[in-house]
Structure formats: structure tokens, C-alpha cells
């Protein structure tokens, strides 16, 4: 029966995460301009990666979260907040606009900063002793 709660938790979390992603994108595009959507995606994916590292470490140090809470936070909220499809679409779009260097920088930068972000999320939580 907890299966049903996990599905509901993922649905609710992903709904909130998706709306957060929409908000961040709209704020970034309103400040920088319509051609800067990939800046927003970069920011979303790096902060989301940091958060998943932090939540993972927090859960580990507390002997594991309740499965429904874990589903809400990781698969739901953070999984729905970050996006891979927009990332690959924007990378291709940049190369279509003959911005090959920007496309390369965007892809390599997103992956490196994402992985480092996740690592820092774990390390910061551990350092904070949370």
C-alpha cells in the first residue's frame, strides 16, 4: 500500500519541481533575454545536482528517510526540477545557430558542474554535521 503513497509523493514532488523550474527559467529569461534559456537550465541542473547530493547524504546519516519522503524529495521534487531533455535540446539548438563553442562549453560545463555539484552537496552536508 505504501506503493500508492510513493507514486502520489513522486507526482506531487515533480509538480512542485516542474513549477520551480518554470519560475527560475522565466526569471532568468526576463533578466537576461529570450536567448538565455540555457543559462536557466544550467542553473537549475547544477543546483538540483547539489540538492540531490545533500539529500542523499542527509538520508544516509539519518539511517535512511521514510520511503515516501525519499520518493517525494529525490525522484519527485529534485527529479522534476532538473531536466535532461531541455539540456540536450538546447545543446543541439546552440550548434544549429553556429555557436559550436558555446554548445560544447554548455554540455561539458553542465556535466562537470553537475557532478561536482552533487559531490559538493554530499561534502557540505557532511561538513555541516547534519
Amino acid at each position: 500500500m505504501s506503493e500508492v503513497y510513493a507514486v502520489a509523493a513522486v507526482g506531487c514532488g515533480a509538480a512542485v519541481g516542474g513549477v520551480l523550474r518554470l519560475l527560475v527559467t522565466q526569471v532568468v529569461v526576463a533578466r537576461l533575454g529570450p536567448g538565455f534559456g540555457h543559462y536557466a537550465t544550467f542553473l537549475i541542473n547544477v543546483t538540483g545536482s547539489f540538492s540531490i547530493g545533500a539529500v542523499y547524504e542527509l538520508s544516509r546519516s539519518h539511517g535512511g528517510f521514510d520511503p515516501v519522503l525519499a520518493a517525494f524529495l529525490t525522484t519527485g521534487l529534485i527529479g522534476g526540477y532538473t531536466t535532461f531533455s531541455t539540456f540536450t535540446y538546447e545543446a543541439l539548438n546552440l550548434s544549429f545557430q553556429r555557436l559550436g563553442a558555446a554548445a560544447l562549453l554548455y554540455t561539458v560545463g553542465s556535466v562537470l558542474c553537475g557532478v561536482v555539484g552533487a559531490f559538493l552537496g554530499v561534502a557540505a552536508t557532511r561538513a555541516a554535521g547534519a
Partner: protein
Amino acid sequence: MMERRTIVAVACGAAAGGIVRLFVTQAMTARGGAPFGYDATLLVNLTGSLLLGMVIEVAQADTVFTPFWRIFLTTGLIGGYTTFSAFSFDTLELAARGFALTAVLYAAGSVTLGIAAVYLGIAAARATRAAVRSRSARRGQGPR
């Protein structure tokens, strides 16, 4: 600044997308997939990239989708279905467990195949549209 309809579209789409991602992950884990399910994340991210290419191409060229359904599908459903956080965390986990080569292959493979999948999605949408147009032109109806 933000329309309520847009928020509703994204929330509903992302909820559905997240649940589909959960089901795909559970199905692959049940079949005995890779440790901590990075193969499921790869499958989700590649199919999502393919779908996003198709949907954006269809939405740009035709008047198939209203703005509501367009953002429901793109930012909502497909955006919520795919995930970058699981991708980064999987890569970190692989590297931390000593599978450095797998980590590099997983990261590089996800990105290159993901971009190729978007391209394929766009090409498939264009080919379908061209086929539909030429069929209706042969019938003497002309492109609609």
C-alpha cells in the same frame, strides 16, 4: 507575470512525467538492471530527448498544439520525465565506487546519444510531415 494556466499545465505535466519515470525505473530494477538504476536513467533521458525533439518540431511548424498543450508537453511532461540530478548523481556514484571508466562512458554516452536523440526526433517529425503533405497533395487537396 505568470499565467495561472501555464502553472497548471506545467504542474500536471511534470507530475505525470515524474510518475512515468518512477514506473520505468521500477520496471527496469525489477528485471535486475544495473546497480542503483543508472540504466533506467539513461533510458528515460534518451527517450525524453527524442520526444522533446519531435514535439518542439511539430509545435513550431504546425498549429497542432495550443500554447497550453505545448507547455504541458514540453516543460511539463517531458521536462518532468527526464532528470539531470539522477544523471549527475549516478556519474558521481560510479566514480566513487571505483568504476571510473563506466562513469566517463555513462556521462559522455548520455550526452552524445541524448543530443543525437533530439536530432532524430526533429528529423522524424519533419519526415512525417513531408510524407503527410505529399500524400494530401497527390489527393489534390494541397497542403493544409
